[in-house]
């Protein structure tokens, strides 16, 4: 079997400007943040991002990486709104396709099983139909009613962060919810899984039910071991959301000077630099 281990920078080396990238997790929960930080360090731009948005969206918007965003929401959970996403919207900096959150699931699933669309009543009568002019309707061939034809959301790349994986790409969630990470991987040409720890295959299920290995290696292009790679989002049970850091992130967005200082302190170096700066901050706080 192929050993698919690689680094964050290897992953970013396979990305191109203009790609459509799906990002796993949900809000400020189990986001592949070390992969996002690697994108921040790169020259990539004009990305189309598809996600249940959290600080991944905020950081990418703040760095000017996003051309278009497809989303149902962007939220930091314990703090309802992400400041950079708000600014990007209010400045007209990004194009958007806003859909009901359930429609993202339908679109990703359709792409993964290679059908062009799925019919749904979700979106009817709402902004979804009004603000997405490319969205088409479809008549029930067995009846008369008209439904929204949610198009497949084909991705160039999926980026997800899991609790555990083996070096072949079998990947496991240990928290309460798999979110839609397997659907992103199935919908993508290339899927990259970062994880808290790479373990032997046998160890994945030593103490866990097989359903926790939600992603099979046949969907996975590369595996990155990224301890605390989900920071500052929640990556239960390995760690909870770093609320103090998230507050700091939000406060720093208040003005350009404080944001520059935040970038300098945390995002000006590599991942090891980031993790050291985070540790230093929490030690100061303690």
């Amino acid at each position, binding site marked *: 079997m192929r050993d698919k281990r690689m680094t964050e920078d290897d992953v970013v080396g396979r990305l191109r400007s203009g790609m459509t990238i799906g990002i796993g997790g949900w809000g400020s929960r189990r986001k592949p943040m070390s992969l996002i930080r690697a994108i921040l360090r790169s020259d990539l731009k004009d990305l189309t991002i598809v996600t249940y948005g959290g600080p991944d969206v905020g950081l990418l918007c703040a760095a000017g990486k996003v051309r278009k965003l497809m989303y149902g929401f962007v939220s930091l959970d314990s703090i309802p709104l992400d400041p950079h*996403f708000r600014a990007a919207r*209010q400045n007209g900096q990004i194009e958007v396709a*806003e859909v009901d959150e*359930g429609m993202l699931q339908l679109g990703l699933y359709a792409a993964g099983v290679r059908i062009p669309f799925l019919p749904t009543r979700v979106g009817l009568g709402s902004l*979804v139909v009004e603000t997405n002019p490319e969205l088409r309707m479809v008549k029930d061939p067995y009846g008369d009613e008209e439904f929204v034809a949610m198009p497949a959301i084909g991705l160039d790349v999926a980026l997800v962060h899991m609790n555990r994986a083996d070096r072949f790409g079998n990947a496991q969630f240990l928290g309460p*919810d798999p979110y839609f990470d397997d659907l992103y991987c199935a919908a993508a040409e290339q899927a990259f899984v970062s994880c808290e720890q790479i373990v032997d295959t046998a160890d994945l299920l030593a103490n866990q039910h097989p359903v926790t290995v939600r992603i099979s290696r046949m969907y996975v292009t590369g595996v990155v071991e990224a301890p605390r790679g989900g920071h500052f989002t929640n990556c239960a049970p390995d760690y909870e959301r770093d609320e103090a850091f998230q507050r700091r992130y939000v406060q720093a967005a208040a003005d350009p000077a404080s944001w520059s200082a935040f970038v300098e302190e945390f995002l000006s170096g590599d991942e090891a630099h980031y993790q050291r700066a985070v540790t230093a901050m929490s030690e100061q706080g303690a």
Partner: protein
Amino acid sequence: MSGADRAEVCVIACAEAFRGNGEILGAPIGLVPIVGARLARHTFEPDLLLTDGEAMAVQGTWPAGAPASGVVESWLSYRQVFDVVWSGRRHVMMTPIQIDSYGNANISAIGSHARPKAQLLGARGAPGNAVSHPTSYWVPKHSTRTFVPQVDIICGVGWDSARKAGPAAMKYMDLRVVVTNLGVFDWETESRQMRIKSIHPGVTVDEIQEASGFKLVVPADVPVTREPTDDELELIRTVIDPNGVRYREVKI
């Protein structure tokens, strides 16, 4: 029972929204709705399902703001919740930033969608909720800013929007009530215009009309929202909301 404050009357009004729902998923979004739904389940609606706010359906009653402490009865990941939504087995109570007479509700952004003045959460599940299962709303601050002639962006689908969209939108549409800090509202059957269902103790019809950006339907007899019983008040104050999270939404 006297001695209940406005926030506690709002809790009762939210709890009443879940009366008769039976064995479906209650999805209160907002602090007063959370307290209300737990009160409903603890007392008159025992079959209701409620989650821990993440991915578990949890039995029992625990304080608002505290981690769920009851027995986990089933798994409800987000993916399963979408299936529950589309199956119709759910009653959501959402907190819109704007709502109009037909029940169109906005949680996405203020201003134009292309270039919002204030970007908020995004549509979330509001479009799907409204056309799939019972949907209610909670407005902690009833004013002409929240009760508007026309919402800026339609997330939760109102009666007129659903009718325009066709039978597939109307088929499972089931807008129930809007609870605010001033009263409870539903929709007149014929016109589908918002109607006063009850006014909270101490509030007048004129006061409500004054605080609304559109004309409300006023029935000949306007009942007063019922107050909590002694037992309910005790439950709210000592078991379900001992830390008073309800006052973060309804100032007294």
